[in-house]
């Protein structure tokens, strides 16, 4: 990190390293720590899906359809005879990959737009923020539907759709933080020393607004995971036979009374994933930005 940015002018305390933060999380926020551990476990299981899944998630076996849990399939089979556990593992993988990819994409786009809007000001700020206002004026599902109607259903499309939904949020957060930092002495010193605007934004402004961006990343992830599942549920996301936690719920709806395991476990996996992300996200926020604590 640049030596200028760590001068005590703004930071009254030396920025804590990531291990220190992790240790503080474990001490102060038991629930957040547990949620983090659960989240890591889910992520590892999802990433290792090709290795640990007992079956091929898309291979159909008509003779084995709607088998109850047990019977050689831990969580039973669906109407096409596909192993429910394998589909959940691969579906969770898609939830996390799509969620992470779209939130990262919106963070990059929103940060770039927010930095320019906040630091440059004048007409670029007006233009960027009004466009963001317009995107913000669409309910998430509706905006995603509009994007999918243009680019078609599929996983790439929903990454684009979800990224479009979250970009305005990141751009607003980043613009507000940039405005707060841009007139502080170390930035002015950079300008006086002749640093280019790009260098000032990347080396001096960005490191000092990293905390709110991280908080927003953690908070947006659960929404992105839910949105992926919702779009797949509506038939706009993952294209069959690709397993997604959302499409598992809609595919097996007709049989849920007869074979509740075809939807219950997928629903449970989705609920647990979102709950873990929410609790972890709240913990990250409390850690990095104690002013926003809901239980303060």
């Amino acid at each position, binding site marked *: 990190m640049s030596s200028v940015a760590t001068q005590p002018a703004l930071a009254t305390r030396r920025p804590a390293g990531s291990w220190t933060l992790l240790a503080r999380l474990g001490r102060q926020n038991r629930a957040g720590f547990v949620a983090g551990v659960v989240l890591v476990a889910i992520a590892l299981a999802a990433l290792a899906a090709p290795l640990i899944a007992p079956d091929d998630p898309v291979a159909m076996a008509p003779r084995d359809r709607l088998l109850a849990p047990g019977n050689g399939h831990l969580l039973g089979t669906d109407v096409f005879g596909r192993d429910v556990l394998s589909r959940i593992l691969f579906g969770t993988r898609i939830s996390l990959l799509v969620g992470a990819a779209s939130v990262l994409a919106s963070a990059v786009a929103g940060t770039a737009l927010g930095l320019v809007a906040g630091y440059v000001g004048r007409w670029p700020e007006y233009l960027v923020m009004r466009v963001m206002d317009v995107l913000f004026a669409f309910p*998430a599902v509706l905006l995603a539907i509009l994007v999918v109607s*243009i680019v078609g259903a599929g996983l790439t499309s929903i990454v684009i759709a979800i990224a479009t939904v979250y970009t305005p949020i990141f751009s607003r957060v980043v613009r507000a933080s940039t405005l707060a930092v841009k007139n502080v002495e170390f930035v002015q010193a950079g300008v006086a020393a002749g640093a280019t605007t790009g260098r000032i934004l990347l080396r001096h402004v960005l490191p000092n607004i990293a905390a709110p961006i991280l908080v927003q990343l953690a908070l947006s992830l659960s929404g992105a995971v839910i949105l992926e*599942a*919702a779009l797949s549920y509506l038939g706009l996301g993952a294209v069959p036979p690709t397993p997604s936690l959302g499409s598992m719920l809609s595919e097996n709806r007709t049989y849920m009374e007869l074979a509740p395991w075809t939807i*219950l476990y997928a629903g449970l996996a989705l*609920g647990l994933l979102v709950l873990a992300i929410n609790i972890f996200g709240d913990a990250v926020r409390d850690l990095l930005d104690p002013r926003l604590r809901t239980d303060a």
Partner: protein
Amino acid sequence: MLSYVARRLVVVFLPTLLGISILVFGAMHLIPGDFVDVMLGIGPDVSAEQREVIARSHGLDKPVPVQYVVWLGNALTGDFGRSLRTNQPVADVIIERLPATLELAALATIASLVLAIPAGILSAVRRNGVVDAVARITALIGLSIPNFLLGTLLILFVSLRWPVLPTTGFVPLSEGIGANLKSLVLPTISLGALLAASIMRMTRSALLEELRKEYLTVARAKGLSGRAVVLGHALRNALVPVVTVVGIQTGYLLGGTVIVEQLFAIPGIGRLALDAVLQRDYPVVQGTTLFIAASFVLINLLTDLVYGFIDPRISRT
């Protein structure tokens, strides 16, 4: 107050609305394939001359900016074009589908407010007590269960076992209020859970914030009862952020209706928009997205006005 309303209208409402119309109009031009074919649903069996005649009769041979102005002018007079599938005017279809969506959204909002604000107040006043713990855990679950999952679970565990409530389908108000409300109980819960959870959390944290302030110590010191302090003084100030959440979340409620209407087979606007996307009925996609987004902006404008009412300082700045 009046100038505040006018300023919000001119500075925020109208430009956003204009931007939305440009986005919705422009989006249709980004759809792969020839715009005339896309918007008029022309198949490959139509000859080039016929296409040209049809395009001219719809004004689609004009430059795009001219088309936009004509389209916007039509939309402002309630003409959103015709459905490619049924040839009905899009405006008529929207009006036909509107009551179900409005009723569902209104029920979900009212139920959330009635349940969540008292729960938030109790939770804040009895902080760290049993009520607080139950309310907070319920809210966290409400935030973590996607509406389609909650709806599916409600069908599976409630209506399939206790057939008093119908699994899916919608009974219009004209066929009796009892049957109508029964058909909306589960959809209302599915749609309102997230809103209720957000309202409860915001009421609680805003009230806790307010209860720490000095003017409340003064209020207590002059002998006001606990009830008067909380309900008469703290609550009014705590309601400002709550109104923000209600405004934003009610907008998302409109998006949520897409999913809940699909799940419970309710003939509303959300389902109309979804079916239109799946059937590539682009004039309907255009009309419904424009309508829903404009409603969202209108709700946000109303939220701004309610702020001015609750906290007069806001409208004077």
